[in-house]
């Protein structure tokens, strides 16, 4: 087909672009076939790879990578295999659950009621921590320097509240006696006022007694809800204590592995580079699939 060949040569630029795409796809295909995860990562984000791992400037290949954007779930699932094996040694306290193809939820720890800590972005080789949960951890780490826990103050307040509420409950019978005596006194004063020599002083006295009675009645009112409140507070204390316990386990596991929290943060920040460097060195040792 001579005519066609002519057409081809008339659009060298377009053909070049298509060849580039074909080349990209076939390279990616081959990398997946031979399980060269490092190359897959490079092909998916060449600029990032060159800059962060090889530490040299590079052109972005995002336009090429765009072609496989809709294959991300499968690619993520594929690359997660070796990555999670690597992470189980580098961050031994994290556990992963694939909740959808290529979507990995992070759990912190293997203890009771461990927290769901966010997601693992496999293609970016990055932890995407749940901001609320991560904030709690960093807050508790900061407080631990003063030997305090995240919820120490809240628990102290709730405990104090419960003591006060308990006093209200315990004081009920005493209040009942006092109310009886106040009512009798009020009656007495009221009767006296009706007499011929009623004066302002008696009214003052009566008002004072009524005020006292009302104060006691208001305590009674609070007591009605006190029992429910005590139970609610206890539930809250339990919840907060559990959270403190979980946070202390999290901190402890980080310290055991990294020595201090800053080193952990650095390791999290440099995860992409650290992982790819590991893949390169495995490649050099010819030890593919070591993590499988």
């Amino acid at each position, binding site marked *: 087909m001579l005519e066609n060949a002519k057409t081809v040569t008339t659009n060298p630029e377009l053909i070049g672009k298509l060849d580039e795409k074909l080349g990209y796809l076939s390279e990616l295909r081959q990398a997946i076939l031979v399980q060269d995860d490092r190359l897959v990562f490079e092909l998916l984000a060449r600029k990032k790879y060159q800059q962060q791992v090889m530490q040299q400037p590079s052109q972005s290949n995002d336009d090429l990578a765009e072609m496989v954007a809709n294959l991300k779930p499968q690619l993520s699932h594929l690359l997660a295999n070796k990555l999670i094996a690597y992470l189980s040694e580098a961050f031994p306290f994290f556990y992963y659950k694939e909740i959808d193809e290529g979507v990995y939820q992070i759990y912190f720890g*293997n*203890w*009771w*009621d461990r927290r769901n800590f966010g997601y693992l972005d496999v293609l970016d080789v990055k932890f995407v921590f749940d901001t609320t949960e991560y904030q709690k951890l960093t807050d508790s780490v900061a407080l631990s320097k003063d030997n305090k826990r995240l919820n120490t103050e809240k628990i102290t307040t709730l405990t104090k509240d419960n003591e006060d509420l308990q006093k209200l409950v315990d004081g009920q019978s005493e209040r009942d006696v006092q109310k009886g005596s106040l009512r009798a006194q009020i009656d007495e004063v009221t009767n006296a006022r009706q007499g011929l020599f009623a004066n302002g002083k008696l009214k003052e006295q009566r008002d004072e007694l009524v005020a006292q009675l009302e104060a006691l009645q208001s305590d009674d009112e609070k007591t009605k809800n006190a029992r429910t409140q005590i139970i609610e507070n206890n*539930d809250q204390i*339990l*919840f907060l*204590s*559990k959270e403190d*316990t979980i946070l*202390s*386990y999290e901190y402890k596991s980080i310290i055991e592995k990294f020595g201090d929290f800053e080193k952990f943060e650095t390791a999290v920040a440099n995860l992409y580079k650290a992982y790819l460097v590991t893949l390169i060195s495995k490649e050099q040792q010819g030890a593919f699939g070591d993590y499988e």
Partner: protein
Amino acid sequence: MNKQTNLPVGILPSQSLTSYNNEIKQSLQAGFEFTELLSQVLATSNPHELLTAIQGLINLHLGSKQVQFPNQYSIADWFLLFTTRLLEINNVNSFSLASAPDHEELGVFLAGTATKVRYQFSEASTNGAYFTEIESGKKLFYLDFAANKLTFNSTDIIDFFIVQSDMEILPEESDQVITVLMNFASILADTLEFDIDYSILETNNDYQYETVSTELPSQILDKLFIASAPANVLMQPVDSGFGARLVLTDELEVRFLQSENNRQLSKFWHFEVIDAQGKASLMNVLVNFPFIQRWYLENRSVLEIQPAKPTIVDNPIKVEVLQPRSM
């Protein structure tokens, strides 16, 4: 019928006093039988013979209007004599049998609680009796001769060894006492084919200590989790099913989980105690791990182990065979 002599109606001398004589004879016979049986109990080294002879003593009515045996042991004493003799026959010497100096009554001291605590059988009938700590009245097990069964009483065992602070029984001491009791139970099972319901003392790793409650407040497990942290024990979820596991030592693990039984709509909860040697029971765990003990006692209304199913043996004359204790 001799009208001429105006004598009253009488009986033939040869036929007189026969029932009187018979009654004495029977009583003496019973007395002989008694000493025969007792000799057998004291001398035999055969557990079956021992059991038969003791049962003979328990069922024997000694004494009548005519012949009195004023100083008698009670049925409870025969149960205790049986227990201690069976241990003696099997060369177990971690107990000391004691007799009251001024009357017929036996008691026993056990290794572990030494002379601090004395035990006896109580509420004894021909069917069975409770092995009881005298001061507190806590019944540690029921020895059932009618059903050939020994049933440990987990509630009273916990009350006696753990709850009562005035007794001040140390963990090592209760471990020792429990060993003696378990020893006795296993001898009963091995030599006399008794069924044993170990309940909270069961050491089999596969045993499920079922709790009384189906409705478990969700916070119970959270409380245990919080309590385990200061004790440096990590509470984890179980691999399958719903519940928690705590590795207490390299060789000992306790689990608390929902029973998987599809036939029951209500969900029971149970404990499992797994140890390398198969020697630990839930009781050992409660005695030796204070944080679990505290948690158990604080939530006892829902965590209590199911009481043993009572063995039902009808005995309408139970009250009549109870003998008053001779003083």
